[in-house]
């Protein structure tokens, strides 16, 4: 997948519950209560999250009439959901590797890191690549990433002074590995049929 797709996919994975749900759905047999116990989430909160994932076409909900047996899954990943799961696995091990986690809980963290890795180094160009964030949220996230020393902010003297952002030297080789893994994942979009 390309960087723009990767940015959309990693953005979809942000938040408290999306990654844990995707990562544990299979081992819960695709069933609601085993997943709920495993994640230690309240049933209503899990239900809300699942409804959102259904409308985002990440998972498919099987009705009691679709299911041939009560032990069969209530939810299954769509092809899009499968692509997201693969990225979630990369992000999960990446956050361990760079010892900064959980970055995915806050939106835009991973899209920003991917943008920076691809030499989008100015505020405006990052904002445009990411598409949707408000300038305020982007500047908050950049500030946080700088405080974590994942990102370095520098002043460049061109005709006029500009700020540039870079992945900190220490993390550049890790980011290269992460990007290689993500780029090799097939990016199935919503609406992709089996």
């Amino acid at each position, binding site marked *: 997948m390309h960087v723009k797709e990767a940015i959309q996919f990693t953005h979809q994975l942000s938040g408290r519950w999306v990654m844990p749900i995707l990562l544990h759905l299979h081992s819960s047999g695709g069933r*609601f*209560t*085993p997943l709920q116990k495993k994640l230690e989430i309240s049933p209503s909160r899990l239900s809300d999250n699942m409804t959102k994932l259904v409308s985002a076409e990440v998972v498919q909900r099987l*009705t*009691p009439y679709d299911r041939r*047996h009560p*032990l069969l899954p*209530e939810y299954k990943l769509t092809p899009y959901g499968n692509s997201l799961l693969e990225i979630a696995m990369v992000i999960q091990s990446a956050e361990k590797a760079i010892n900064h986690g959980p970055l995915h809980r806050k939106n835009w963290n991973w899209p920003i890191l991917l943008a920076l890795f691809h030499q989008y180094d100015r505020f405006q160009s990052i904002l445009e690549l990411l598409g949707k964030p408000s300038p305020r949220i982007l500047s908050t996230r950049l500030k946080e990433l700088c405080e974590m020393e994942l990102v370095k902010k520098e002043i460049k003297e061109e005709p006029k002074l500009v700020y540039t952002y870079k992945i900190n030297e220490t993390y550049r080789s890790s980011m290269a590995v992460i990007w290689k893994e993500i780029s090799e994942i097939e990016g199935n979009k919503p609406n992709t049929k089996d």
Partner: protein
Amino acid sequence: MYKSGLTIWYNVKNMDESVKYFTEGLGFSLDFKDEKQRIAIVTTNTKDCCIGFAEAETVAPVTSSAVFEVEDIEKAYVELKERGIHFTGEIETIPNLVKLVTFQDPDGNSFELSQTIAD
């Protein structure tokens, strides 16, 4: 081709409640329970006939009934009522065939007791 064995599976809202209903209420015994997967199986009055439960987010009660044979339906009716089983109606008699009485589990699945009437 077949061997002895019949299991009826139900989706239920709460495995523990269903197990309690079928063991303490109806008097069957617990055969198997998996706390993590939230599934359980109880044995019934008939050898190799079991009832399985698996928790689900959405439960659609089934309309077909599993029917348990009893020796004396009037006695069973009174005894189970005392143990908290809520019957849907009174005992009905189909002449020369059976006496039946219907009840529902906590999820609204239908069950019946039946006593065959010997001529």
